[in-house]
């Protein structure tokens, strides 16, 4: 090897050593500035057997039904969630996914909880209907109970001749606490189950 070739080897070796020495600082900078990947939350509803099947559908008065609601946090940090339970008939509004707007219906009840990043929250929800009556070609649901707390809804549902039933939807909206605005913001996620009122 001549002197120029030796110099190339020296320069390359020095650069490699410098890179190795700078690695701790570079990794520190990368950790501080890294975004942490995609951030999202999950919201799910499972049936009474804790599976995505056998959801309550044909429902009646004074019967108790069970579902499991769950939330998964992948936001990169601990999060403060709020889940609103809402009840509607076929004509009342659902959340607008495109506009990220929640349903304008009032909530029956709410669940607030903190979830660590990568962790989940799950709760058993029992619900029942009271004061249900048939009035002409529509059904009136007076009260809905969720986890033994009773809420007045007084919601009418017209007979759906196409799907042969009186349909209602019990749905859950996910809201996330925003530190900047110091308030809960709709997180653009909702799940629900359709219910056909079959006995009054």
């Amino acid at each position, binding site marked *: 090897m001549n002197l120029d070739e030796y110099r190339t080897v020296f320069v390359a070796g*020095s650069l490699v050593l410098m890179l190795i020495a700078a690695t*701790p600082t570079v990794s520190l900078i990368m950790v501080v500035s890294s975004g942490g990947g995609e951030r999202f939350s999950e919201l799910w509803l499972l049936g009474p057997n804790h599976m995505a099947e056998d959801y309550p559908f044909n429902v009646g008065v004074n019967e108790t039904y069970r579902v499991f609601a769950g939330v998964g946090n992948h936001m990169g*940090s601990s999060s403060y969630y709020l889940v609103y339970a809402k009840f509607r008939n076929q004509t009342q509004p659902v959340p607008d996914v495109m506009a990220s707007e929640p349903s304008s219906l009032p909530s029956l009840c709410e669940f607030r909880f903190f979830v*660590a990043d990568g962790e989940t929250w799950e709760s058993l929800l029992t619900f029942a209907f009271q004061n249900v009556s048939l009035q002409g070609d529509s059904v009136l649901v007076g009260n809905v109970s969720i986890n033994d707390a009773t809420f007045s809804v007084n919601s009418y549902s017209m007979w759906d001749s196409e799907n042969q039933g009186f349909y209602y939807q019990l749905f859950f909206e996910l809201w996330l606490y925003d530190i900047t605005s110091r308030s809960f913001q709709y997180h653009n996620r909702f799940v629900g189950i359709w219910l056909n009122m079959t006995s009054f």
Partner: protein
Amino acid sequence: MAKSASKLLVLLIILAFSASIFTTGILASNSEDTAATSIERAENALVSAYQAVLEAERVGMDVAALLTRLNEAGESLIKAQVAFTLRDFDEAIRSADLCYEVGEDVKSQAEELLLVAYSSSVMGNWLTVTGSLASVIVIVFGSFWGWHVFKRRYIRRVLKKKPEVAKDESR
């Protein structure tokens, strides 16, 4: 005389009843205001505690236990709100105060964690950056020095070599 005395007695009784109704109304209104204030204070404490926990988590501290306690505080707050809706103001105040106490406790624990994290992480980061920088400087100067030493020896070795005269075998 007896007639006027009985009238006075009736008047006194009416006054006593109306006063009790008036006082009850004021007390209920006071309880409602107190409960509303307690709930608002509890909500603020919960949010402040959450912010402190987030800060502690951001600097790498384990906040799992604090989140569990925040959830306890959150349950108390929900109880307070439900009790307020049912106009059970005593229960609302009790639950809101419990939420406030837990929230404040969590906040102070999170701030302690934050202090520990800051002092250890600042020292750790300083050591890392300084050590790294010092190593790079040593390598740069070492490389220059090493290269000069090597070059000098290389040239000396080359100069020591005697030129060889090759025989001309073509003759």
